[in-house]
């Protein structure tokens, strides 16, 4: 929650002593509100005011960093309950669980598969975020060995899972510099785990399965020891308890500004379900409803791709569709006699069409009109994709400068525009393409003559 200058001013000494470099306390407060100077520049703040200001300056849900360098992810930091109110900013980390009870070879193979997984959507590349390594064997040495091997082959954001401080200590010695999430401080081990997390500068998960009150108590103890980067595990595993707890935690943080719940939450959908499909559905629920880190037990492209797509959907700014720059785009290596296809600048639409053209036998020109980021029919219905606009774009992008013909392929959904377009662009031939981009290749084969 950010404060206004006037709110901050109330906490200042109001002596206008100028030590901070400003003529008055109020002037200083204004600069603090703009975040252009730190509150600590005033030497005369009372301890009480300092604490009140610091806690007010902290976001209601802590932003927690997991991992080191450019591989790190940031989770938490959300400020609203519903995405239409603003945006959800920090997509939940999707990490894959490895158990040290499985043969090392098998685990490393899995690591290789996961680390090599990369899928494209609307021109962006998406991957799994990292691994959760569990000390399932109970053997500290086996745990440390697996952690070391993963840290070496795939230095990514990690969750280290063990209830044994000794095992955790050994694992952190192997991978502490990757700033893994230490999972977890419990009522039994919290003091040791807190020390370990502190010593390695790692975020710490706090787990209490017996009610939010116990969890809050434990969080306070851990926070008192100076740990700021906390992740919560309230213990609910199935659909209902997960939804209930994650909603309650989010509300406690945002509505009540209740500090001990002001952290991202880690979930384990595989533990509340009995098979892959079920796990992926629960993970989907958790993407939509408030998870910060999701530990998946199953990994396969047919789960990752839809989950990554859902995450992208839920975490895009609801006010601004992802857009392309309007213009004439060469797809493949188009020549003067190549087809010219017309589409919108909604990036989902663009990539659907560009993708099909790329895999067709026809290098083509794709003319992307400015529809303010709307899809074909939405833009048409909103009056932002009509014959006039298409004709204008044809001139603006100087299509005749790139090709030696006068033919345009328009989306099948816009068949009604054909007549009007032929009037607007006299001498041009308007071909009505298929409705779905998937059929473009076949269409061009049949209808395009160079």
């Amino acid at each position, binding site marked *: 929650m950010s404060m206004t200058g006037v709110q901050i001013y109330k906490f200042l000494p109001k002596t206008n002593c100028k030590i901070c470099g400003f003529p008055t306390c109020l002037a200083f407060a204004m600069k603090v509100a703009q975040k252009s100077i730190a509150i600590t520049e005033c030497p005369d703040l009372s301890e009480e005011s300092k604490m009140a200001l610091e806690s007010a300056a902290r976001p209601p849900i802590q932003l927690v960093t997991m991992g080191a360098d450019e591989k790190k992810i940031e989770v938490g930091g959300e400020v609203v309950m519903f995405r239409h109110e603003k945006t959800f900013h920090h997509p939940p980390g999707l990490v894959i669980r490895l158990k040290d009870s499985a043969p090392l070879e098998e685990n490393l193979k899995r690591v290789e598969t996961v680390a090599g997984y990369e899928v494209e959507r609307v021109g962006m590349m998406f991957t799994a975020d990292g691994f959760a390594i569990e000390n399932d064997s109970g053997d500290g040495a086996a745990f440390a060995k697996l952690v070391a091997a993963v840290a070496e082959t795939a230095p990514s954001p990690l969750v280290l899972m063990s209830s044994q401080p000794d095992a955790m200590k050994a694992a952190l010695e192997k991978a502490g510099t990757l700033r893994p999430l230490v999972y977890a401080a419990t009522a039994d081990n919290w003091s040791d785990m807190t020390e370990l997390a502190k010593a390695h500068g790692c975020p710490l998960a706090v787990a209490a399965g017996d009610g939010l009150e116990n969890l809050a108590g434990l969080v306070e103890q851990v926070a008192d020891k100076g740990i700021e980067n906390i992740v919560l595990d309230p213990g609910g595993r199935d659909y209902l308890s997960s939804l209930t707890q994650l909603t309650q935690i989010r*509300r406690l943080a945002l509505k009540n500004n209740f500090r001990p719940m002001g952290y991202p939450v880690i979930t384990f959908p595989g533990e509340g379900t009995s098979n892959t499909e079920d796990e992926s*559905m*629960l993970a989907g629920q958790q993407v*939509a409803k408030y998870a910060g880190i999701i530990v998946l037990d199953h990994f396969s492209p047919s789960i990752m*791709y839809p989950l990554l797509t859902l995450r992208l959907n839920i975490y895009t700014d609801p006010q601004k569709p992802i857009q392309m720059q309007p213009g004439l785009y060469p797809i493949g290596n188009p020549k003067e006699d190549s087809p010219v296809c017309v589409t919108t600048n909604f990036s989902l639409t663009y990539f659907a069409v560009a993708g099909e053209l790329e895999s067709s036998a026809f290098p083509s020109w794709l003319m992307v009109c400015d529809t303010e980021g709307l899809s074909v029919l939405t833009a048409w219905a909103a009056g932002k994709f009509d014959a006039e606009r298409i004709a204008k774009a044809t001139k603006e992008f100087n299509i005749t400068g790139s090709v030696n013909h006068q033919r345009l392929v328009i989306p099948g959904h816009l068949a009604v525009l054909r007549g009007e377009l032929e009037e607007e662009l006299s001498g041009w031939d308007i071909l009505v393409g298929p409705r779905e981009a998937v059929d473009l290749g076949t269409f061009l084969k049949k209808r395009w003559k160079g």
Partner: protein
Amino acid sequence: MPAVEIPVEKWSGKIHEVKLGGQGRKEVVVGGENTLPFLHFEGSVPNPPVLAIEVQDSEPREWAEPLLQAWGDVLKDPAKWAKKAVEVGASLIALRLKSAHPEEGNTGAEEAKRVVSSVLEAVDVPLVVLGPEVAEKDNEVLVAASEAGRGQRLALGNCEEKNYRTIGATCLADGHVAIGKTPIEINLAKQLNILLSDLGMSQDSLLMDPTTGALGYGLEYTYSVMERLRLAALGGDKMTSMPMICTVGEEAWRQKEAKTSEGVPDTWGPLTERALRWEEITAISLLQSGANIIVLRHPSTVEKVQSAITRLMG
């Protein structure tokens, strides 16, 4: 230990309860909740969301391979198809009168009557009847369906701004429920509910279809508009308090991800698995944003999503 006071919203509104079927036919009630989806700690959710399976009146030849395989020969016969759909767990049948579409056969009232009767005969669950989404044809075949199902409390859709009068009137005459469909816009949805109410339709005879975008194809818009409609309803706006119906199967199975096995990246995974996940994850997301009826296409999705709903109901 710090005292934890769970914030509970004091909603003043409640979703209207809408009953389908009855009179010898199984009865399904949707709506009635006075809180957000599945938040039992805050309010009451008297009726679980229900799953419908889409059945078409003519064989859907262009459907994706996994669907054709799962259903097999019953796709040729809507009555058999509906029967099988009930066996695999559908609580409702959503019969799409596709063949009435001018480009799909342009059949008329007679055929609609015949198919609706045969499906009503074949199953004992309530029926949703959907037109081909061409306003004049919708009027023609939905009026016929309405007569064929008189007294069975069907849900008839879709009403749009263009044709709500005819469909609303026939629903009133024959005791059915009308489905108003609007394109992902809260004010349009509300406006259509007002228009239908002005015709004399009571609040317990209306459903709304907010228009579904599939995962990756507009889901984010549908999701948010549904949340906003639901929040408005709980805030006390009776004209946005209608239970919501989402055509998840139709949208999910239309997308390339659910249709194409060749020429797509390996990172998409094999077609059948990927396609099923596409439908399931679209469904689970929209359950979180307030769907009361979800229309699906694949039999195994019904089982999976039903099991999730059962657990969400506690």
